[in-house]
């Protein structure tokens, strides 16, 4: 009987130790996941800002200077069979 009680107590201690180990492992895993999520969230925000910047800083010079052809056309208009 004593042996059975001793064995049961031993098994309970073993189970408790395993459980504690699992909890510690889960805690570390959660910590690692959280850190990755924080990094990912920040990285995504930075990427979005860069992407927005690329849109905002585009040039309109091609449109603005497209009237240069008209300036040339005025001069060309005076060409005739003199």
């Amino acid at each position, binding site marked *: 009987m004593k042996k059975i009680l001793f064995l049961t107590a031993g098994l309970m201690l073993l189970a408790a130790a395993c459980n504690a180990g699992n909890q510690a492992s889960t*805690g570390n895993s*959660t*910590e690692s*996941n*959280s*850190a990755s*999520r*924080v*990094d*990912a*969230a*920040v990285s*995504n*925000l*930075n990427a*979005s*800002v*860069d*992407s*927005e*910047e690329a*849109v*905002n*800083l*585009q*040039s*309109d*010079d091609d*449109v*603005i*200077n*497209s*009237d240069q*052809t*008209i*300036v040339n*056309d*005025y*001069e*060309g*208009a*005076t060409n*005739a*069979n*003199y």
Partner: protein
Amino acid sequence: MKERPMRTIKNFSLILATLGFILTPALGLAREDKPTAPASDAKNFCTRIANVTGEVNSKLVKVDQDRGSKRTEVFNQLKERKESRVKQVQEKRDQAKADLDERLSDLESDALTEAQLSALAAFRAAVAAAQEVRKAAVDKAMADFRTSQESLVTKRQDAIKANATTFKADVAAAMAKAKTDCAASVDPATVRRTLMSAQQAAKDKFQQANKDLDKLGGQIKNLTQTRNQAVRDANQAFKAALETARQNLKAAFAQS
């Protein structure tokens, strides 16, 4: 004594020959500068003046119409680009917000302690504040740029119009003088030469006036640099604030 007149003639001939040798190339060059046209064409210039005037006027009227269309086209294109970019930027901001909300929800479910939940709330508040500051700065930089750019483009278009008006007036005056000279029986070749010379002067003046367009281009370039710097500064400040918030949050989640 009898030989003297002969010697004088010889010397005179020699001088003439030398002068001819020196002047011939110069005269040749001067001829090259004149409008090249068959003598018969120059002779008949006054019979063609009405057609030439009509042809030039028609072309100028068409270019004037093209200029008006181009002005409208430039402003429309700038407006379309602005609308398209504003839309793209808004989509990117909405997407970033949705992504952040999702990731912060995941982090909330990871949080095991009150301290972690509190750190998460602080992170969320810090990001929102930084986003507001950045958005205000970027939107202001873009709005300032667009307002000033539109003003300069208007100035540019007005300058082209004014320069063109002067050019057309100069050309019309040259044509009118040619018609008057023809009517007054001035040598047609001379009338033609005078007209072409006046037109060249009008072109030179037009080109010189249009150099101001380059100055406006320089002003637009300066505006662009100011906008770019303001946008980059705002984005850098945001990233710095975000990095601080990130470190604080990671530190909270590292504590168990």
